[in-house]
């Protein structure tokens, strides 16, 4: 049962074959048994989870169940959940209990999903390996000596290890798609503005977007149905009618034009990963799609641009952590300024401090035009590349990450090496487009590889259709890490 997709679990729950309490107990016992080796969770609350499961069972009995009612889920630990610790994997917020719910938390709660815990992550979502956590690194269930990717590494590892059927994540530069690729799970980052950022602790506000992990494209569609939609409390939430992300899943791919960016298939891409991605593209062709080469000429500028814009916005957003209103305050200090300096030096880990310093510099007097403004201009060029590409195709396909999961410690001493991990995901965030990762094979060392699909603005339903049709013809998404399957 722990291997089921969301619709399969829902069929058991709503058909009277299992209660939410039973299902929730099953996943809680898996967490208890298997998570000590993975460290995917920061907080697990069996008491709260079982209370929510019993409430879901009452709803099901009353005939008021929705597609997610009674299904256990986990939230990345930067979604505020009332009465739950919300740490952002930082010492700064290690003991902070949220007094309110994020929009996403409220929505999934209302849908009857059962929150079992909050997942580990890179501190304040800054990282690509989940090694930057105050609560220790997350381990990849495919090989516990390797990283699960980041920053939503806990959510990805938890879904991969079948500790929870689905989980939320956030993606600022690849933080959902890259860990999904490295753990053999499915992960979607929707269009900027499709999911409310209210109650999602901010990292880089013009790039941050909430999304989800699951075991199939249909799982992602069901999560998006609950999470998406307009929210007046987020000034960047886009006012559009609610949509059913499942609506096109059953449509065949005949006539679909798949764009292959030539800059995504170069020597930067490991041959084992490239082979899996190309085989997946061949499968799309067999299913009736045609392929066309497209070009994203400014793609190589995306990582440099990102490391100006994201730190700049982070330095501004994280100025709120001053040891006054919430969070860590140093025990000893000489005066107010000293209290700020020490509280922030003690509360933030090295990568967060580094990015705040970079951001402070690029926004400082005399450097703004040369860095921040220039980065915003190149950002427009990158977005323009995608607009031209989508004139020739309906969806873009390519790799998610240049390699399979790398060993813990391999890149942690060199920030720039770590940043280059995101070269295929960051352009999507800069443009504000939706993207997803679905498993498409096993590469070196038998480790999972993800296929990235990039859609045009608000074209999630089509991306999900392509992913679902691919999954009807293949079974890579059904592969569990050895020792974690049914």
């Amino acid at each position, binding site marked *: 049962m722990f291997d089921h997709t969301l619709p399969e679990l829902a069929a058991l729950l709503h058909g009277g074959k299992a209660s939410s309490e039973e299902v929730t107990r099953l996943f809680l016992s898996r967490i208890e048994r298997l998570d000590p080796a993975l460290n995917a969770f920061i907080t697990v609350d069996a008491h709260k989870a079982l209370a929510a499961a019993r409430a879901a069972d009452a709803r099901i009995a009353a005939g008021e169940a929705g597609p997610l009612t009674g299904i256990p889920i986990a939230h990345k630990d930067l979604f505020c959940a009332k009465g739950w610790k919300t740490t952002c994997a930082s010492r700064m917020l290690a003991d*902070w*209990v949220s*007094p309110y719910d994020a929009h996403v938390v409220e929505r999934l709660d209302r849908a009857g999903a059962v929150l079992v815990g909050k997942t580990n992550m890179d501190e304040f979502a800054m990282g690509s390996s989940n090694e930057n956590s105050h609560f220790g690194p997350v381990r990849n269930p495919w090989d516990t000596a390797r990283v699960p990717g980041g920053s939503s590494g806990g959510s990805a590892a938890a879904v991969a290890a079948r500790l929870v059927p689905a989980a939320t994540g956030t993606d600022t530069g690849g933080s959902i798609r890259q860990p999904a690729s490295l753990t053999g799970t499915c992960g979607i980052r929707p*269009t*900027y503005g499709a999911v409310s950022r209210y109650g999602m602790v901010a990292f880089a506000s*013009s*790039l941050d977007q909430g999304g989800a992990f699951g075991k199939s494209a249909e799982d992602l569609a069901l999560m998006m149905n609950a999470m998406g939609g307009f929210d*007046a409390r987020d*000034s*960047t939430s*886009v*006012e559009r009618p609610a949509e059913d992300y499942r609506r096109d899943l059953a449509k065949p791919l005949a006539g679909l034009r798949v764009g292959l960016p030539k800059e995504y298939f170069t020597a930067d891409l490991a041959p084992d990963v490239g082979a899996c991605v190309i085989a997946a593209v061949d499968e799309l062709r067999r299913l009736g799609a045609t392929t066309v080469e497209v070009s994203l000429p*400014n793609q*190589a*500028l995306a990582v*440099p*641009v990102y*490391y*100006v814009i994201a730190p700049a916005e982070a*330095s501004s957003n994280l100025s709120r952590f*001053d040891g*006054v*209103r*919430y969070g860590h*305050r140093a025990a000893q*200090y000489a*005066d*107010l*300024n000293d*209290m*700020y*300096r020490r509280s*922030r*030096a003690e509360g933030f880990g090295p990568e967060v*401090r*580094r990015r*705040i*310093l*970079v951001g*402070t*510099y690029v926004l*400082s007097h005399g450097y703004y035009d*040369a*860095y921040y*403004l*220039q*980065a*915003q*201009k*190149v950002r*427009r*060029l990158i*977005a323009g590349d995608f607009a031209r590409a989508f004139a020739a195709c309906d969806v873009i396909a390519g790799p998610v990450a240049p390699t399979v999961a790398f060993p813990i410690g391999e890149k942690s001493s060199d*920030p*720039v090496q770590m*940043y280059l991990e995101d070269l295929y995901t960051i352009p999507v*965030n*800069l*443009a*504000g487009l939706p993207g997803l990762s679905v498993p498409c094979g096993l590469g070196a060392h038998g480790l999972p590889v993800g296929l990235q699909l990039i859609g045009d603005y608000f074209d999630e339903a089509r991306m999900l259709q392509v992913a679902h049709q691919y999954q009807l013809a293949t079974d890579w998404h059904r592969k569990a890490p050895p020792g974690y399957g049914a």
Partner: protein
Amino acid sequence: MLSRDDVRRIAELARIEVPEEGLAAVQHDLNGIFGLVERMRAVDTAGVEPMAHAVDLTQRLREDKVTDTDQHELFQACAPQVEDGLYLVPKVIE
């Protein structure tokens, strides 16, 4: 290339203490990052409009009525030091 003094100045602006013995390592990391960023600075962007956001935004207006309730006790419960509804900080004015 950032100098040690540049790093000290940025750390002060960012209100993050960087101890003297840690300056060299931070300087090295930041210069590595700015080496990566350099590639972007050479691009000709004459006439390109800066892109501040992923979507074109217009500020929405809402009705001018109270929608929030006073929950300051709840919200201040997590503060390091509070007295009579006020956040306490070290004395700023003698």
